[in-house]
């Protein structure tokens, strides 16, 4: 599982750099963050969640769309596109046996409903703010 999480992190870093112009950074000194946006791709065998702070979600969306005039709808649409690309590549490379199709991503309406203890997680940093990767395998 540790290797899978590392692979997911590397792939996320690559996708966010190539398509969303975000460069992963070392962990900053600041420690308290609030995640505001969450998107998920899952089926009965696996679940992948990405949680974003307000700052990272907006930066990612602005970079992708090439404008700083964005709505919440733009943000969720872009975050769903990002997780679709990450999950599509991740499933193709590492979870071929668990899925024959990439499920449609969806917005997590209430982040408090996520059961953190069920997931393996890694934190990445962009512009001094975190992005949380979460992976659960139901096998």
């Amino acid at each position, binding site marked *: 599982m540790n290797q899978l999480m590392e692979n997911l992190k590397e792939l996320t870093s690559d996708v966010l750099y190539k398509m969303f112009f975000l460069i992963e950074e070392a962990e900053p000194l600041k420690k308290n963050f609030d995640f505001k946006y969450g998107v998920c791709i899952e089926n009965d065998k696996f679940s992948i969640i990405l949680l974003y702070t307000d700052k990272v979600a907006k930066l990612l969306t602005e970079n992708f*769309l090439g404008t700083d005039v964005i709505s919440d709808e733009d943000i969720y649409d872009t975050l769903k596109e990002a997780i679709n690309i990450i999950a599509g590549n991740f499933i193709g490379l590492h979870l071929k046996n668990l899925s024959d*199709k990439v499920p449609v991503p969806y917005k997590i309406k209430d982040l408090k409903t996520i059961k953190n203890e069920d997931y393996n997680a890694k934190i990445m940093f962009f512009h001094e703010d975190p992005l949380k990767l979460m992976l659960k395998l139901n096998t």
Partner: protein
Amino acid sequence: MPYNILIVDDSSSMRKVLKKAITMCNIGQVEFIEAENGKTALDIMNNNWIDIVFTDINMPVMDGFQLVSRLKKDNIIGNTPIIVITSELRTEQSEEFKINNIKHIVYKPFRPESIRELLLNLLGMEEQDESADGEFEGVDF
């Protein structure tokens, strides 16, 4: 006459980015038409001349494979060039690509150069000059 390019994707963000990438290709005047699923795309194609289709695979209502399959059966619009944009790398899907005779695939994450190469090839155009290459320096998508 502008090229009519149909972009089929359920993500409005991805449609915007594709329009930007295609515009950067300098292929001349382009008229963009958008659809958020295969069914809407078919309706549009039955009523409008389309030069090239860019389509996603994973869409609600009618996915990209269903769209391509339906198009191939149509004598009038069945020869329209199709470029599939996808993040799905699975071998099972490769079979579906073969079954549907899909020859032009761009994998996400992509660079605009890959879009331009395909467009120039499909439109029978040659690389124009070095300034066009300069447009893409340092640019990813």
